[in-house]
């Protein structure tokens, strides 16, 4: 599904003394099946964009085009619901997404809500819980009787169970341990590749941006300040730092080595690439080869 933002503004509590403009004049296009990373400082407007994408809020001004369907300030709720059926969103705080008595029921809720029978819903739920690697011993527990990382897995399963075409992820790996983080990111990448999912990922982990995204939107104070591929984004460390962001560790390390006097290519974004370029430099030096 292609998505386009046209002159989108969003004001929280519009028309009240507390009105707070969160997004100003956003214009961008997301191609079908793209894996887009949305990055930017705290409070820059990322979660607000995601809520617009999920039809939870409507633009104060401007339009969002979903495969040609127009969403603007006047769009009735029932039309938003139609869009939402294809969009799955994993919220920043997993607890805000959990509410049922058991983990299994919680994950079944989405598919049932979109018209699946209890049996179908249970099948989808079990499949999703396996995808997120939550052992069956937890399925009958209350989702609130879990550790932070375990809750995160349930929240992700709940979204996968509705089999969305667009998967929206708001810092989906915050609170997961590194093994869990890797598992989830690999799983999302596989879904993206095999089922042609469109993914929009909000993250502060620049490694993940480098590894998985093919397109990057950079937000600052409610405005889109850059839209490019990861290599272009990470080519300018100083600019990223001005945005309160950073380059992936491999880029930082490469830059330090270059400052030390090494001559290394510019397009390094991960540790394997860095090791390969170093190998070329260090080859023929009588090491064990």
């Amino acid at each position, binding site marked *: 599904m292609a998505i386009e933002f046209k002159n989108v503004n969003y004001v929280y509590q519009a028309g009240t003394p507390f009105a707070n403009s969160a997004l100003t004049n956003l214009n961008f296009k997301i191609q079908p099946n793209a894996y887009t990373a949305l990055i*930017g400082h*705290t409070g820059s407007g990322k979660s607000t964009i995601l809520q617009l994408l999920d039809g939870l809020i409507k633009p104060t001004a401007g339009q969002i085009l979903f495969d040609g369907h127009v969403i603007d300030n006047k769009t009735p709720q029932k039309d938003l619901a139609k869009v939402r059926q294809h969009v799955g969103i994993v919220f*920043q705080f997993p607890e805000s997404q959990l509410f049922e008595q058991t983990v299994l029921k919680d994950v079944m809720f989405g598919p049932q809500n979109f018209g699946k029978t209890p049996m179908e819903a249970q099948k989808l739920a079990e499949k999703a819980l396996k995808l997120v690697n939550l052992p069956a011993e937890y399925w009958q527990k209350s989702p609130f009787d879990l550790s932070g990382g375990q809750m995160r897995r349930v929240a992700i399963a709940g979204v996968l169970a509705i089999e969305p075409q667009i998967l929206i992820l708001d*810092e989906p790996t*915050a609170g997961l341990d590194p093994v869990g983080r890797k598992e989830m990111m690999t799983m999302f990448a596989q879904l993206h590749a095999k089922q042609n999912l469109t993914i929009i990922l909000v993250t502060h982990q620049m490694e993940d941006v480098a590894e998985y995204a093919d397109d990057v939107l950079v937000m600052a104070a409610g405005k889109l300040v850059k839209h490019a591929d990861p290599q272009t984004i990470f080519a300018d460390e100083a600019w990223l730092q001005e945005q309160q962001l950073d380059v992936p560790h491999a880029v930082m390390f490469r830059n330090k080595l270059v400052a030390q006097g090494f001559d290394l290519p510019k397009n390094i974004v991960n540790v394997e690439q*860095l090791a390969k370029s170093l190998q070329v430099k260090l080859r*023929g*030096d009588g*090491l064990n*080869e």
Partner: protein
Amino acid sequence: MDNIIEVKNVSYQYPNSDYKALDNLSLTIRKGEWVAIIGHNGSGKSTLAKLLNYLLVPDTGELIVDKQPVIEENMWTVRNKVGMVFQNPENQFVGATVADDVAFGLENRGISRQKMLEIIPMALKEVHMEAFADREPTYLSGGQKQRVALAGIIAVAPKIIILDEATAMLDPKGRKEVIAAILKLKARLGDELTVLSITHDIDEAADADRIIVINDGQVVDEGRPAEIFSAGPKLLELGLDVPFAEQLKSALNNLGISVPSKYLDEEGMINWLWQLNSKM
């Protein structure tokens, strides 16, 4: 140096659970230490934090905080000494505005109105949230919520700060700023401040004096960061990322380049590479 926290043979099983979240766990924290607690998801880290604050009561064993047993009659004195930032800051907000929320902890500790009016803006400034003083905490972005929760702790400056993944939702610069703010507090208070930081973040763990590793409700290892980090790829099983220099070492090793077996930090790694390069 005195021990500020002693946990002796503590076990805890949640009422509706069929296994122990903490299983005969013992540890001591010295006064003034900065300790990182690491462990994979579900290993028992948050449970330990809640026991230290008397939010949970152990089934067996004993906890002592600043020489006082953590029992019902000491509950409030203990909570006054321990400032905790939870994994999800939304569970923590009580005030109608950001400033009220920061004030709450001060009021509880009987700080005068006048003093509060000095402290609150200072604390909000430390986390760059001064412009948000009159906003409702629920109407903030995720990272802003975490900053406000941290401001509440900085304002109170308790004897012990427990951070339960308190920076997980901050942007890279924000993380550094928040840690810097706590380090600044530490510099001011010296040994009067002890920090326990529960984290999966390698850089945060690297800042600690000591790392304690928890697995399945038990302490399985402890040591200075450099000692713990020398575990290399095994760190992943312990719930921590592998430091970048170690990742690079493994990647070079995989390409057939022999690398030193001892732990190298980034600077050490750069020096080693540079020497190797110069020999050519």
